[in-house]
């Protein structure tokens, strides 16, 4: 993976804090993310990992702090100073967001092909034949058979819906993808297939990913770096295998030792 040669970070996060009233969502989070890097945010429910993800992806304005993103022209822009139109374009083209519940990221009343094609139309593609061809190609890449292209995702299993959501996100060749528990709620065998697929796509496309998961095995398989959150703070961060094999903080040691061995 020679993607690490790049010297400029794609995303720079400075002291991001989000309060809900007096309650802390997340506080004082800072990190850099480089092109091609996969960062896992782990921690139990209520630790602030989803709040942080929503702040990063401009779905939830932080109370304090700044998030800068390197645009395709190389300039570094503060996300919360972009115009609404610029921000929407970014979310539609340069970014992806994979939700835990596929129905939140898909349009359930239109066909699988249209779900994928819609993102292409959003970036200006108008040729129906080409859009359908690209959609078909992407369905293949996420292992959905061609003959399901006109079917509605309501008729898909949970694993298929999740794969369709991934195709919909990746079709515009985003540079940064946010994922919120992408394997949550799936059967173990379905999870394994999805994880393998994600691992390959992320490596092939050189994607940068911020993935929220409570599953340390998912973090180990997919991520280069890990941040452990508790009570809204990052309590430990570093190379994924180092944090998991040589955890330093009491809470991280508890998390690691709580995994069931198969």
């Amino acid at each position, binding site marked *: 993976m020679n993607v690490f040669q790049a010297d400029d970070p794609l995303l720079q996060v400075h002291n991001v804090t989000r309060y809900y009233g007096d309650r802390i969502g997340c506080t004082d989070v800072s990190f850099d993310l480089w092109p091609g890097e996969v960062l896992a945010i782990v921690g139990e429910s209520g630790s602030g990992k989803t709040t942080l993800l929503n702040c990063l992806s401009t779905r939830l304005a932080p109370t304090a702090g700044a998030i800068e993103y390197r645009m395709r022209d190389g300039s570094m822009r503060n996300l919360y100073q972009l115009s609404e139109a610029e921000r929407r374009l970014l979310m539609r083209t340069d970014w992806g967001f994979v939700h835990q519940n596929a129905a939140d990221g898909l349009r359930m009343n239109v066909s699988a092909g249209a779900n994928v094609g819609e993102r292409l139309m959003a970036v200006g593609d108008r040729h129906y034949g080409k859009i359908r061809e690209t959609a078909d190609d992407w369905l293949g890449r996420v292992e959905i058979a061609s003959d399901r292209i006109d079917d509605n995702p309501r008729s898909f299993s949970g694993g298929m819906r999740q794969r369709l959501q991934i195709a919909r996100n990746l079709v515009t060749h985003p540079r940064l993808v946010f994922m919120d528990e992408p394997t949550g709620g799936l059967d173990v065998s379905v999870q*394994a297939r999805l994880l393998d697929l994600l*691992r390959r796509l992320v490596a092939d496309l050189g994607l940068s990913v911020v993935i929220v998961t409570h599953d340390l095995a998912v973090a180990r398989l997919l991520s280069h770096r890990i941040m452990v959150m508790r009570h809204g703070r990052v309590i430990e961060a*570093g190379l994924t295998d180092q944090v998991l094999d040589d955890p330093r903080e009491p809470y991280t*040691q508890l998390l690691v030792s709580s995994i069931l061995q198969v």
Partner: protein
Amino acid sequence: MPVRLYLNSVGKSFTMHLQGGTVIPVVENVEFSVDAGECVVLGGPSGAGKSSILKMIYGNYRCDQGQILVTVGDEIINVADAEPRQVLRLRDNTIGYVSQFLRTIPRVSAEEVVAEPLVAQGTSEAEGLDTARSLLSRLNVPERLWKLPPATFSGGEQQRVNIARGFIAHYPILLLDEPTASLDAANRAVVVRLVEEKKAKGVAMVGILHDEDVRQEIADRVIDVTSFSADVAA
């Protein structure tokens, strides 16, 4: 021969917070260097800290004290305080790790598992797979298994897949964590040959080898890890 790896006053302990904060000292003042083309074997009873030293060099365990200096071209990088992405880059191109235990990935075939580190260094996939197959064949992994994911292989077969994966790419520094444990004599001999080939290419190696015969054949120097014992001082 030039020095490839230098450990300077390296120390490590574990603090077990779930056991009331018990501190387990592992090693202290570890000091040695390894030249290109040299194989240094770490000796001492189990629990002396041999594996911990290897894992610190690989960046898998944190290094609490001292420096772990690695030569990369004209540069010297200290693994002990390197950024995660620097460590990952070192693992792609500079430091390899051969262990006994394969971490299997669902749905990835044995030959792909083996080829991966070579492909990551820029070799084409076709050439990577070719090299992978010839290594699997040298290590007597039956051909009918090459296209299957190793999750269901026997322990010995998984171990040999992992050895092939560890030896396939070119790393100036190679760490050997008991690569011959529980191998039969024929496969032990293959590993000895692989180590000799690496030596001839100027690879600096640090190994843990319990097998006395293998050790005799490949070790240029044995370092007794008990001399770095942290218990003595504690």
